[in-house]
């Protein structure tokens, strides 16, 4: 509670300093709008921001769902079949060397201007951290527990379901927490490259018309969206991983 108050105080002080700086230096709103102006734009343009924010939120959620599904399957396969890990791990690492900005135009070319390319963009950007976290979770399981399950005569599926999966849950949620916050980056990059809706699209449009205040308003909505998704993950983490001390919240 104390740290939460402290962070609110810090954030308030930052906004006040920003406000003061904009007025004192007489900075034009199209260069750097003051926080009060951004808040006013958020209130005035709420329907527009909500419409585009909803599109981005859907892209993030679907991208996360797609990525998590693929990550769970791949991590489980790589854990159960070590040969699969040997074969796929180099490809997985190499995929992280590809800049997402380079991928975005290709995805738009392949999947069009619709939501598909943005969903895939979000999925691509979060796939790696979730897969690696989950695999790490499976591998970190206590060898003595594995021995215990073996002694009980548990098969691969039972051992996976009753031991490895719950064991890896804290790792999975740690990866997912990072993932939902960076998924927004993937979706927005996709929208920048080519789309007809979304906060990235709105930012590009506003920037072209020197509506810097609207760009900042879009960024504020995007940040709020990321924090909201983070909180949702934290909520489910506390429900699902009640035994772990590593559960975190913002």
């Amino acid at each position, binding site marked *: 509670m104390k740290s939460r108050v402290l962070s609110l105080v810090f954030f308030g002080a930052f906004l006040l300093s920003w406000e003061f700086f904009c007025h004192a230096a007489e900075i034009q709103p199209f260069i750097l709008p003051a926080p009060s102006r951004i808040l006013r734009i958020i209130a005035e343009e709420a329907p527009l921001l909500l419409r585009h924010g909803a599109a981005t939120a859907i892209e993030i959620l679907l991208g996360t769902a797609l990525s998590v599904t693929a990550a769970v399957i791949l991590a489980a396969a790589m854990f159960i079949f070590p040969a699969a890990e040997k074969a796929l791990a180099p490809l997985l690492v190499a995929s992280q060397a590809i800049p997402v900005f380079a991928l975005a135009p290709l995805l738009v070319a392949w999947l069009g201007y619709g939501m598909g390319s943005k969903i895939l963009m979000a999925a691509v950007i979060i796939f790696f951290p979730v897969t690696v976290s989950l695999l790490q979770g499976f591998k970190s399981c*206590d060898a003595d527990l594995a*021995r215990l*399950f073996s*002694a*009980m005569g548990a098969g691969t599926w*039972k051992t996976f379901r009753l031991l490895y999966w719950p064991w890896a849950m804290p790792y999975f949620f740690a990866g997912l927490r990072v993932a939902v916050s960076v998924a927004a980056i993937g979706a927005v990059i996709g929208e920048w490259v080519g789309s007809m809706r979304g906060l990235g699209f709105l930012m590009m449009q506003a920037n072209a018309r020197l509506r810097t205040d609207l760009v900042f308003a879009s960024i504020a909505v995007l940040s709020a969206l990321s924090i909201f998704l983070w909180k949702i993950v934290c909520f489910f983490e506390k429900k699902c991983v009640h035994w772990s001390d590593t559960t975190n919240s913002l």
Partner: protein
Amino acid sequence: MSPCRLTPSEEKSKVLIDSNWGSRYIPAERKLLSFDPWNLIRVMPAKGSAFFRKLPAASENSRLPIPGAFFMIEIKNFTKSFHNRLVIGDFSLFAREGTLTALLGPSGCGKSTFFDLLMGNISRDGGKLFLSGKEIPHLKGTAAYMSQKDLLLPWLTLRENALLPIAVKKTPSASDIREAEELFELLGLSGSGDLYPRHVSGGMAQRCTLARTILFRTPIVLLDEPFSAVDAITRQTLRSLLLLLRSRFRKTLLMITHDVEDALLLADSIIILSSAPMTAREKLAIPTPKENRQGDPSLQEKKERILAMLQEKVS
């Protein structure tokens, strides 16, 4: 009459009852221990209660070794190599029902590999395994496993943890759950079934582990260095629980350890192991009754001899 006082007939029959549980008399096995585990395990069903009638009490005669008793487990000529390096070489042992056999050897001599071979976690290069005279490939499903860690799953309640050996095979039935509750009552865990391991003390966690080991419903228990890295209180609790497993539940125990004192205090026979490759160097029978072991000069001699053997190997 006080419920704690025995009638003359009960007094007469108390020697036939495994006195570790239910009796207010200090049992021989507890005399062995300088620390009284009774202080940790207070809530016990009264002598003559339904639980005691249901469970067949182990007689004094079940305190093996008994000459000519049936071989429970027999291992013949186990061998295992890793990368052309012999890790276990021609290792054999037998253990009778209800005995505790300690495998005593230096760290890294291949004891854990031996357990993995027994459990079928890794394949052996040669050797045979017999259970009650019948050859079997491994002890998976036949032996329970217990280590110095309680190995309770933190996401399951104590009851669910205890029922785990059943849950991996089928959904526990009402009678399974009732059996777990009865064991909890016996072990002083009444009303703790819905607690999670993080909410209970180390001693309670160990008793839950014991309940789980019993619910394996297997005749053999493999103990992997059960007393290493535990504090003095937990060590004493574990010792008493092991003796309970052996005497009351008639389990055959194979314990790997590097602690000479534990082996001498608890085991019916000790196999001294040599390392690289692991072979049975010498087998010692400990005929002294457990209650008389503490301070027994012959055991002190044995201890020195064993230590000399182990040091000789190291040097």
